[in-house]
């Protein structure tokens, strides 16, 4: 009982969540309202205080606005308002029944084909393909012409001629769902094929079919109108299509005869299509663009903000390090709020050194990299900060100026190399293009030579230049990315998860090579990763990031051995220590924190075993542990830190 209740609750919540994101869009909301109104009018038409749509009144061709005839009358002196409303009844019926028939057949055939596979799939897929080739409208035309245009036949015919598309969608849905774990689990638990289909596969595969159905509803109304225009509408019902085509012959005398039903039809068809779009957005969230809501205020201007005010004379300060980030602040707009992705981050590095930036995913480490190389998503904004490279400020310079720094002095290696390369161009060409972009005078040949050189450097056979990314192994692709980063011999490389998704052996190999290259070329390296072991192996210094802030920074050895922040100890301590005894590998319990809007107190409070009231109310300051080691914890200098995870994590 309880379980059922929970399930129900969960369903309800899921639906609410869906509904919220579905109705987030204004056009979708308007469309829903239109359909709701039309449906309401259509359903209640017999009880509305309007004349019988078939009844002949006194005056033919009364213009709109005539008393008693808001939308005028037609050539038979029938009330247009009433006819438009009753036409909605037919229109919606056509839409729903046709689309219903279409998707019912489509779901049935599609799921049979997808679920059973083998020869059943072969046969059904062929049938689907064949029917996709037959021009549906002409088939509908033929059938309706042959058997006489009754509205019932028209609906059935529209349904029967449009099923292949939902069938195809359903088939591919079932194919993906079939292999999902919960389906497999149900199968192991002894569910029969029909149970699997009915309870597990079809309900989960249906959403895209429903999206297709809304589009079908719109087109069913249009097809009915098209048939009517060709003289194949059912004359015994009041449909918009027939009203429009009847109105064509009275255009000069009574344009409203075709205009009003035309508008009604246009509105409803548009509404169906827009609802389809809305559903599509919910199912494929990418297609909704990110942008900054213009009503969102600059968070730094608010009176009781947390961010520090801009420091004076920042850009005139000459840094003493080779690379320095100070007070970098970058927020994302998320609906009506700012997410503090990078909050007052400051870091320093010497030439030829390496810095590891570790943290769980979503902590903002990648955002730092993106801010540095200036590829921010549309909803991100840098509010504050300075970046100095080799004594020069590079964050607050115009793009044109930055272009000289980009790749020449500072380049980047991206995570997930599979997608970081253009899938439809040979890898060599991609590198040559980049070379020519920055060396516009260089000939193609020079570019090729340079790339060949780099391929040698990163141990890829030169012949691979003509390969496409999908033809290379993961390690090879990552080497291409490294080659790309080295293209113009930069001083600083920001490597964002360069080894994620590779198998351990290759990971090590790549890291090792990267290390060699770094030595050889006197590179500075910022290594962004969630994997502490990577940092441990290859970085001089480590910065630990949590919820947009650096919480601790210092020499890698020190941080791994004696981190002075509970988070660091949780994150790094979980590693097989370099020197000490092995700890168990357990992640820190709780979910990572997303700093939205104003944040009070330490951001780690919720997950910290040492949290106190102080932590909850007061933002911990940067506490210097030694000269080159600091931590953002009230208790950084206390012994208690060491016992942070003693109770087991």
């Amino acid at each position, binding site marked *: 009982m309880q379980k059922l209740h929970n399930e129900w609750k969960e369903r309800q919540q899921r639906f609410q969540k869906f509904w919220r994101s579905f109705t987030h869009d204004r056009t979708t909301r308007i469309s829903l309202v239109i359909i709701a109104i039309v449906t309401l009018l259509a359903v209640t038409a017999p009880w509305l205080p309007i004349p019988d749509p078939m009844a002949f009144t006194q005056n033919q061709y009364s213009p709109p606005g005539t008393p008693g005839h808001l939308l005028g009358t037609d050539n038979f002196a029938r009330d247009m308002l009433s006819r438009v409303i009753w036409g909605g009844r037919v229109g919606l019926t056509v839409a729903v029944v046709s689309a219903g028939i279409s998707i019912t057949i489509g779901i049935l055939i599609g799921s049979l084909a997808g679920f059973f596979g083998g020869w059943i799939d072969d046969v059904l897929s062929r049938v689907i393909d*064949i029917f996709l*080739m037959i021009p549906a409208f*002409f088939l509908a035309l033929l059938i309706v012409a042959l058997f006489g245009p009754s509205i019932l036949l028209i609906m059935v015919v529209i349904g029967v001629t449009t099923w292949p598309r939902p069938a195809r969608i359903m088939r591919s849905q079932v194919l993906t769902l079939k292999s999902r774990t919960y389906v497999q689990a149900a199968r192991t638990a002894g569910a029969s094929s029909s149970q699997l289909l009915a309870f597990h596969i079809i309900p989960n595969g249906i959403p895209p079919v429903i999206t297709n159905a809304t589009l079908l509803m719109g087109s069913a109304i249009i097809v009915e109108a*098209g048939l009517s225009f060709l003289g194949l509408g059912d004359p015994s019902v009041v449909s918009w299509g027939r009203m429009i085509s009847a109105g064509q012959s009275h255009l000069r005398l009574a344009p409203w005869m075709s205009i009003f039903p*035309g508008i009604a039809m246009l509105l409803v*068809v*548009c509404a169906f299509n827009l609802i389809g779009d809305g559903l599509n957005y919910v199912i494929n969230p990418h297609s909704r663009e990110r942008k900054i809501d213009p009503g969102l205020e600059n968070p730094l201007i608010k009176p009781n903000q947390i961010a520090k005010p801009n420091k004076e004379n920042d850009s005139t300060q000459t840094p003493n390090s080779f690379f320095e980030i100070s007070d970098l602040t970058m927020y994302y707009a998320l609906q009506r709020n700012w997410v503090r992705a990078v909050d007052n981050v400051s870091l320093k590095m010497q030439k030829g050194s390496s810095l590891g930036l570790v943290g769980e995913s979503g902590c903002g480490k990648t955002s730092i990299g993106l801010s540095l190389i200036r590829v921010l998503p549309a909803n991100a904004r840098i509010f504050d900060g300075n970046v100095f490279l080799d004594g020069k400020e590079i964050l607050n310079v115009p793009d044109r100026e930055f272009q000289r720094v980009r790749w020449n002095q500072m380049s980047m290696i991206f995570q997930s190399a599979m997608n*970081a390369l253009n*899938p439809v161009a040979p890898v060599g060409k991609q590198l040559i293009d*980049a070379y020519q972009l920055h060396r516009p005078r260089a000939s193609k040949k020079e570019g090729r030579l340079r790339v060949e050189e780099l391929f040698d450097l990163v141990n890829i056979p030169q012949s691979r230049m003509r390969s496409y990314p999908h033809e290379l192994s993961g390690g090879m692709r990552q080497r291409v990315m490294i080659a790309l980063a080295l293209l113009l011999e930069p001083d600083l490389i920001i490597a964002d998860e360069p080894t994620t998704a590779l198998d351990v052996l290759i990971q090590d190999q790549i890291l090792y090579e990267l290390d060699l290259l770094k030595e050889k070329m006197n590179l500075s390296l910022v290594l962004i990763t969630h994997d502490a072991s990577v940092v441990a192996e290859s970085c001089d210094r480590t910065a630990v990031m949590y919820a947009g802030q650096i919480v601790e920074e210092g020499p890698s050895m020190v941080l791994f051995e004696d981190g002075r922040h509970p988070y660091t100890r949780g994150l790094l301590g979980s590693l097989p220590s370099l020197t000490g005894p092995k700890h168990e590998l357990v992640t820190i319990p709780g979910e990572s924190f997303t700093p939205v809007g104003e944040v009070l107190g330490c951001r780690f409070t919720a997950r910290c075993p040492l949290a106190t009231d102080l932590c909850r109310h007061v933002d911990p300051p940067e506490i210097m542990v030694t000269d080159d080691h600091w931590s953002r914890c009230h208790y950084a200098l206390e012994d208690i830190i060491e016992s942070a995870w003693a109770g087991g994590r």
Partner: protein
Amino acid sequence: MRFSRYLIRRILQLLPVILVVIVLNFVLLHLAPGDAALRLAGEDPNPAVLEAIRERYGLDLPLHQQLWIYLGRVARGDLGESLMARRSVIGIIGDRAGATILLAVTSLFLGSTLGIFLGTLLSARAGSRIDISSSVTAVVGYSIPVFWLGIMLILFFSIRLQWFPVSGMFTILGPRTGIPRLLDVGHHLILPVLTLMVASTAQYLRLARTSVLQVLNEDFIMTLKAVGFSRRAVLVKYALRNAALPIVSMLGLQLGIVLTGAVLTETVFSWPGLGRLVYEGIMNRDTPVIMGAFIIMSIAVALASLLTDLVYAALDPRVKY
């Protein structure tokens, strides 16, 4: 070698389509009420007249025999003879196909070009007011009934402004050859093409916009930006090419839609095309013409989808035959 085997296989796959089209039409045409013989016999015919007509046109044979005869002919590449026009169906379709191809290809070409262009422009301004209003306008564009749009365009541009001819494909007794003829046809072509391309422009606009946006969200775009390619270069040189994949794959589908629009557009503009021919054939129960046209149209759609797949394969190295 692999390619030609692929081609042959694809073309062989057409056979079942043709078979289904033929059988489907045969069954439908024979199940339905309405008899071509009655139509051919004219006003108040004597029974003898009817009988003679049935015999002459082979309409008195049992269904399976008619089907068998027809299949035999199709196998020899002969689509039979129109009951009404007493000419070969291939000839009749040939007379009309040119007009439809001109109309369909021009509007598909212009519609897709314009749609892709506008869609790409809009994707660069995603989320802006103009983007949202254009997207909604595009939905309106393909929600308008084609025939209604055609008539409105005629009323406005041809009757009111008198910029274009009201209907037809060329000026009768006008120029026959050369550039003047081309111009004449072009002048007649504008409104029908405009009518037909509104829907495909709208669809391509939306498709181009979403696919470009989708590509712009992909990781390699970030790489390109990071390397320093300008927005324009990223959009034009890279994103568009990758976005072309879904756009191309819509081409086959679009042909079917354009053919549908063609019958309505041809009716409105008195355009001597295939769509109209099918409609008249259906109204006349001219079985050979109906089947011939269905076969040709299905082949056209199939070829378009083949072409689509070939172009797709050329654009995307990941696709193998």
